[in-house]
C-alpha cells in the first residue's frame, strides 16, 4: 500500500520536473499581478488598497481567543437570563400587600467557606444567585457566617441550650410565684378559694397600711403616666384618638402571626454541604444533648486553652531572651484550667462565636470578645451517641413531641426560634487543586446551570411550600459537593475530629419535627 502510493506520488513529480522552471515563472508573475484579498477602485480611492484575511497565525490566535471570550460571555448572559427568570417568578410574591407596621418573613442564612478557601467563595454565590431572588420575593434576611469548622454547630446548639435554660428559669419562677400566692388557709383546706379570704383580709387592714397601699398605687400610676409620656406618639399625632392605636403602631413581624401554620414561618438557608452538616449536628446536639458540658468537652477545651497559654509563654520567653522586660508568665496546668472551664459553664454558651454580631455594643461588658485563636467548643453529643445517650430536652416537653407535630415555642416576639423553621440547602460547587483544572474550566463555562439551580432553590424558599423532612434522602442534600472536597484536607479534618467529615445521623425525635422546602413543582404552572 505504502509502496504503491509512493510510486503514484513520485511519478508526477518526476514527470513535471523538466517543466518546473517555466511553471515557477508563470506562478510568480501571476502572484505579482493578482494577490490575495479583495479590492476595487472605490476602495482604492479611499486609500484602502486591499481587504484580506489576516495571516494563518493571526487567524488561529483570533479564533481561539474569540471562542474563549465568547463562551464566557455567552455563559454570563445565560446566567443572567436564568436569574431573571426566577426573579420574575419571585416578584409576584413580593408584590403581596403588607401593612405598614408589619415586617416581612425573615429567613436565617448560614454561610461558611468551602474547604481550604475563603468565605468569599460561598459569599459570591449568595450575592449573585440567591440574594436577588429572595430580594425580589420580599423576604428579609439575617445572615450568620463563620470562618471555622464547628462554629455554626456550636452556635445552633448554644442557642437551643440558652433557650432551654430560659424556659427552665421561667417555669421555676412561675412555680415559685404560685407557691407564694397560695395562702395558708388554702394549704390547710384543699380547694379553698383564696380570693374571698383575701378580701376579708383587706377589711381588717389597719388604716396605716391602707394609706401606704394608696401611696403605692399613686406612684405606680405616676410611673405608668411617665412611661406613656416617653413615647410622643401617645400624646400627639394622627393616632391620638384612634381606639386601637397600640395595635396600629406596634411593629411586628409577619412571622409572629398565630394563624400561620408552624411550618410556613421564617426559614433557614444553609449555603454549602458543610454548613448543612453543622446545622443538623447542632440541632441534634441542642435538642438531645445535655445542658451542661460533659467531661470530655471540658477536657478538650482545657487542653486547647493550655495550648494557647503555652504558645504565649514561648513567645514571651523568646522576647525575654531578646532582653525585654516581662512579667514571669504564669502557667496553669490542664487540671487547673479544667476547674476554670467548669466554673463558667454557661458563660461559654452565651459567648458563642456570633455574640459579637448579635450585640456589637455590649460585647465587652458581659461576655468579652471572641478569641479567634480558640477552637469552637466540641460537641456535647456525637451522632453515634444519639440513640443511647440522647434524650429529648425536658424543657421542651410542652412544645416538641416525639409522636405528634410540635407546637410553637413561645418567645418574646412570638416568632418561633429558627430550629422550628423549614430548611433549604444550597450546594456550593467548588474545586481546588492542579489536576482538577480541566473540570474547573468545564465548570467555568457552565455556571449558568448553577445559577438555575440556586435560583430554583431560592424560589422554593420564596414560594414557601414545604414537605416533611425525609431522613432517607434529605440527609444527603447537596451531598455531591463532598466529592469536590480535597483529599488532604479531608484526611486532616478526620484526624482532628472535625464536624464536616462526620457521618450525618438523623434521630427520629428531632427529624420528625423538621420541614424542607419543596422544589418539586411544575414550572409550567407558575
Amino acid at each position, binding site marked *: 500500500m505504502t509502496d504503491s502510493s509512493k510510486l503514484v506520488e513520485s511519478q508526477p513529480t518526476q514527470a513535471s520536473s523538466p517543466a518546473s522552471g517555466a511553471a515557477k515563472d508563470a506562478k510568480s508573475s501571476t502572484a505579482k499581478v493578482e494577490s490575495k484579498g479583495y479590492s476595487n477602485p472605490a476602495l482604492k480611492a479611499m486609500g484602502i488598497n486591499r481587504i484580506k484575511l489576516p495571516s494563518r497565525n493571526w487567524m488561529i490566535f483570533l479564533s481561539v481567543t474569540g471562542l474563549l471570550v465568547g463562551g464566557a460571555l455567552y455563559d454570563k448572559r445565560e446566567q443572567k437570563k436564568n436569574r431573571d427568570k426566577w426573579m420574575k417568578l419571585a416578584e409576584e410574591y413580593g408584590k403581596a*400587600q*403588607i401593612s405598614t407596621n408589619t415586617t416581612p418573613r425573615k429567613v436565617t442564612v448560614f454561610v461558611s467557606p468551602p474547604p481550604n478557601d475563603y468565605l468569599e467563595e460561598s459569599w459570591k454565590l449568595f450575592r449573585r444567585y440567591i440574594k436577588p431572588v429572595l430580594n425580589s420575593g420580599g423576604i*428579609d434576611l439575617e445572615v450568620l457566617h463563620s470562618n471555622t469548622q464547628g462554629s455554626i454547630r456550636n452556635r445552633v446548639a448554644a442557642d437551643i441550650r440558652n433557650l432551654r435554660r430560659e424556659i427552665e428559669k421561667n417555669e421555676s419562677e412561675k412555680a415559685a410565684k404560685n407557691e407564694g400566692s397560695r395562702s395558708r388557709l388554702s394549704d390547710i383546706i384543699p380547694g379553698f378559694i383564696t380570693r374571698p379570704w383575701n378580701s376579708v383580709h383587706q377589711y381588717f387592714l389597719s388604716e396605716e397600711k391602707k394609706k401606704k397601699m394608696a401611696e403605692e398605687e399613686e406612684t405606680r400610676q405616676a410611673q405608668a403616666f411617665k412611661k406613656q409620656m416617653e413615647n410622643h406618639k401617645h400624646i400627639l399625632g394622627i393616632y391620638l384618638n384612634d381606639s386601637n392605636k397600640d395595635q396600629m403602631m406596634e411593629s411586628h413581624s409577619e412571622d409572629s402571626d398565630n394563624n400561620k401554620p408552624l411550618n410556613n414561618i421564617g426559614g433557614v438557608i444553609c449555603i454549602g454541604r458543610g454548613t448543612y452538616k453543622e446545622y443538623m449536628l447542632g440541632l441534634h446536639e441542642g435538642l438531645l444533648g445535655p445542658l451542661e458540658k460533659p467531661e470530655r468537652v471540658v477536657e478538650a477545651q482545657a487542653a486547647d486553652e493550655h495550648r494557647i497559654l503555652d504558645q504565649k509563654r514561648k513567645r514571651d520567653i523568646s522576647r525575654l531572651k531578646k532582653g525585654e522586660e516581662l512579667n514571669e508568665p504564669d502557667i496553669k496546668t490542664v487540671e487547673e484550667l479544667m476547674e476554670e472551664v467548669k466554673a463558667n459553664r454557661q458563660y461559654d454558651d452565651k459567648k458563642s462565636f456570633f455574640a459579637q454580631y448579635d450585640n456589637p455594643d455590649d460585647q465587652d461588658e458581659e461576655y468579652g470578645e471572641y478569641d479567634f485563636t480558640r477552637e469552637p467548643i466540641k460537641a456535647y453529643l456525637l451522632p453515634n451517641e444519639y440513640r443511647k445517650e440522647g434524650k429529648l430536652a425536658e424543657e421542651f416537653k410542652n412544645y416538641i413531641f416525639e409522636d405528634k407535630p410540635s407546637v410553637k415555642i413561645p418567645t418574646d416576639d412570638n416568632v418561633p426560634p429558627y430550629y422550628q423553621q423549614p430548611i433549604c440547602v444550597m450546594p456550593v460547587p467548588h474545586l481546588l487543586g492542579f489536576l482538577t483544572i480541566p473540570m474547573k474550566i468545564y465548570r467555568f463555562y457552565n455556571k449558568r446551570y448553577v445559577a438555575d439551580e440556586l435560583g430554583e432553590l431560592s424560589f422554593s424558599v420564596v414560594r414557601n411550600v414545604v414537605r416533611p423532612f425525609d431522613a432517607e434522602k434529605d440527609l444527603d442534600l447537596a451531598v455531591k459537593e463532598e466529592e469536590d472536597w480535597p483529599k488532604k484536607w479531608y484526611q486532616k479534618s478526620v484526624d482532628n475530629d472535625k464536624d464536616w467529615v462526620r457521618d450525618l445521623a438523623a434521630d427520629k425525635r428531632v427529624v420528625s419535627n423538621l420541614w424542607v422546602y419543596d422544589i418539586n413543582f411544575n414550572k409550567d404552572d407558575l
Partner: protein
Amino acid sequence: MSFLGLGGGAPKLSSEQKVQAAEAELDMVTDMFNRLVDTCYTKCIEKSKGYSEGDVNKNEGLCIDRCVAKYFDTNVKVGEHMQKIGSSQFPGRR
C-alpha cells in the same frame, strides 16, 4: 424665664443663644428628615413602579425599612467623624 423679674433668672443673652442653638438643631433634624424621606421615597417607591397601588407591598416595605435604617446609621457615623475632625482641627475652640 423668671416670674415678674423675680428670682434673678438666667441672663437674657444666653437664653437667646439657647433658642438659636435649639433652632439650628431643629433645622438640622428637619433637614435630615426631609432628605431621608426624599431619598427613600425615590429609591423605594418611585423607582419600583410609582403609585401603581395604594398600599405598600412587601418589596417596598422592606426597601423602606432598610433604607431608613441605613440612612440613620450613616448619618450618625458621618456626624461622629465630622465632630472628630472638627475637634482635631480647631482644638482651641469651644
